């Protein structure tokens, strides 16, 4: 995909695929590893064609084991490589959690910079695809609570294309979340438009009635809700967090100081989560500006239910609008 070529419409999946391709072309130390990432191109085809074009040395299927994937990636990083690990589904990252929390997150600190961990762990997250258990989890908070890690979530094809390249270029370990139910959404990619830095949140829509903060798969949900709210006469300011650790809340504080109202939306259970953190920080920083308490619209504090219940489990347009009604009622 040569720069300067005219905007091309791509899916979020294609954006990731093209971004990985660009990163591998840019730096021969970049490796792609994981279960089924080779010939199959990953169960979501995100790595489609990479093994064919970059060879089995740089793009390889691993044995079945997430601790093995992360642990060997750590060793490869010590050796000077920049591994990009694919975790097949959100629910399968936990066997690798120890290597992520005890090693990947701590080695730079332990060695006081003598070892760097430029490792990207790609995780398709969230529900809404009618899957069986363990395929619809939203484990972002576990990682955002872990010092030493950086955590980002992309929500659209253009961000997907740029953010994966920025994550790979980052010298710190990055947990990279991909909104699996949005993989097939399309958008035009104009390479002439320079990307936002990786660790910045973005105001997607400006508004005055209330601020709505979200990330990942629910960004689309919130934008749709904002469209409906506008028809009803309320303009919502919509912010896509993009970076979950470090958090970039300055734009949120600015916004809430103007709107006086905040709603946090996420698919993850709410207890001890990213939405707790955002609500706590905004309540502190915007103490004198808040006209209403911060409301949260999230997945429920239960295990992820059978697929036939997920439409009720996931925050949808109606639940967001209901929260808008409630926050405006103050």
């Amino acid at each position, binding site marked *: 995909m040569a720069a300067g070529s005219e905007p091309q419409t791509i899916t979020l999946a294609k954006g990731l695929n093209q971004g990985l391709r660009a990163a591998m072309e840019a730096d021969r130390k970049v490796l792609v590893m994981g279960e089924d990432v080779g010939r199959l191109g990953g169960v979501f085809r995100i790595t489609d064609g990479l093994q064919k074009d970059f060879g089995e040395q740089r793009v390889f299927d691993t044995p*079945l084991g997430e601790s093995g994937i992360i642990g060997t990636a750590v060793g490869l990083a010590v050796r000077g490589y920049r591994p990009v690990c694919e975790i097949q589904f959100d629910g399968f990252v936990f066997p690798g959690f120890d290597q992520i929390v005890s090693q990947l997150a701590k080695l730079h600190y332990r060695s006081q910079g003598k070892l760097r961990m430029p490792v990207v762990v790609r995780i398709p997250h969230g529900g809404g*695809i*009618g899957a069986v258990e363990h395929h619809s989890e939203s484990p972002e908070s576990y990682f955002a609570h872990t010092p030493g890690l950086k955590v980002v979530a992309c929500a659209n094809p253009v961000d997907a294309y740029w953010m994966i390249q920025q994550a790979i270029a980052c010298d710190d370990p990055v947990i990279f979340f991909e909104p699996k139910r949005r993989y097939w959404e399309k958008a035009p990619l104009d390479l002439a438009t320079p990307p936002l830095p990786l660790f910045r949140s973005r105001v997607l829509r400006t508004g005055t009635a209330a601020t709505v903060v979200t990330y990942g798969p629910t960004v689309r949900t919130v934008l749709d809700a904002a469209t409906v709210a506008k028809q009803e006469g309320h303009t919502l300011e919509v912010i896509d967090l993009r970076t979950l650790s470090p958090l970039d809340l300055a734009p949120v504080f600015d916004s809430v100081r103007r709107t006086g109202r905040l709603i946090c939306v996420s698919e993850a259970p709410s207890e001890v989560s990213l939405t707790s953190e955002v609500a706590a920080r905004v309540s502190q920083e915007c103490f004198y500006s808040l006209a209403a308490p911060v409301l949260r619209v999230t997945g429920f504090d239960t295990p992820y239910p059978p697929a*036939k219940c997920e439409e*009720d489990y996931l925050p949808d347009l109606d639940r967001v609008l209901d929260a808008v009604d409630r926050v405006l009622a103050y």
Partner: protein
Amino acid sequence: MPSRNRPSSRSSPVPVAGSVGPPDSLVGTAMDIDGSHTPEQVIAGLRATSEGEDLVQLLTPEGQRVSHPQFELEISPVELQSLYRDMVLVRRTDREAKALQRQGELGLWAPLLGQEAAQIGAGRAMAPQDMAFPSYREHGVAWCRGVDPTEIFGIFRGVDQGSWDPIGTGFQLYTIVIPNQCLHATGYAMGQRLDGKIGDAQSAEATICFFGDGATSQGDVHEAFVWAAVYDAPVVFFCQNNQWAISASLDRQTRVPLYQRARGYGFPGIRVDGNDVLATLAVTRWALRECRTGNGPILIEACTYRMDAHTTSDDYTRYQVASELEEWKLKDPLERVRVHLVREGLAEPAFFDGVAAEADELAVRLRNYCLSMPAPGPERIFSKVYAETTPAVEAARDDYLAYHASFTDTGGIS
């Protein structure tokens, strides 16, 4: 243009469920197992199957009974017929499930095509008091334990996460995180020993744990082997080596045959022809008996083949070798029993007609049940989160159900 939804249609403007996956990932290929082979094919199959002295086989691909020094099996025509019947019925169940998935009645299906003998052989080897810990593909073992296929369908239709009684049936719930169940099986078997259920008594118990070739790479399998060996747990580790872990062929997981793993832990490892229901039955029966009498654990590697896609979301044409598939068709687990029954005159045509008719009835029953399967209501989300519920869960449920009702009442919010 999105719009605030009405009670009737609460779907988000961007279609969600089911809308995912590249088109090709939604199509698999039905396998045509007819079993009419030329002599050349049969011989080829025979050669391929008998690779390795170490493979235990009692019935060759072309239906010949062969003997094995260690594993003998006395089996009556009626027993043979019922094993054949089991395999036909679980295969039919599997094909029906696949069809239902294609028609959108199931969200997903994990086919067992080709693994019928491994699963029926192992399932029928179990005593009523034994306990099975399955992975997610053991539909045939479930059948042997009296778990109705509709209960398995419930998981793949997304109406529940395993609705059968895991204690009463002696068949635990499916486990999707690979291979967590190996440690559960080991712990359960440690409990059987603590309960004194080891020995010659009729009441002695054993546990059997099912997992795949890919699963053997996970740390949990190793820890299960270590724990089971150290505590002499009465557990049979039954590995169905169907040669593939999604797109990863066996050489991604090991340099040597998997049954040899057991050597490093100091317990027996045996390799059986997993497409031979008699050999699988004999070896598993022996292994379970050994465990019941205190000589566990034991590892069994059942060599078989995944004759269909990994799941209905998988496109194996991207990685699987057609010739390999053809070769394994010659070792079909059902066909060899059919040929044996016919050639040895152990079953009349009427028997085969009867089984075929039974399979048709079963398919119809499953289809009808599936179509009429009730979807859970929103209250299911909040049900049984804890054995001792919490105020938070109760409150969340009440709030949501009240909110939910606001739509179904008077035309909802607007």
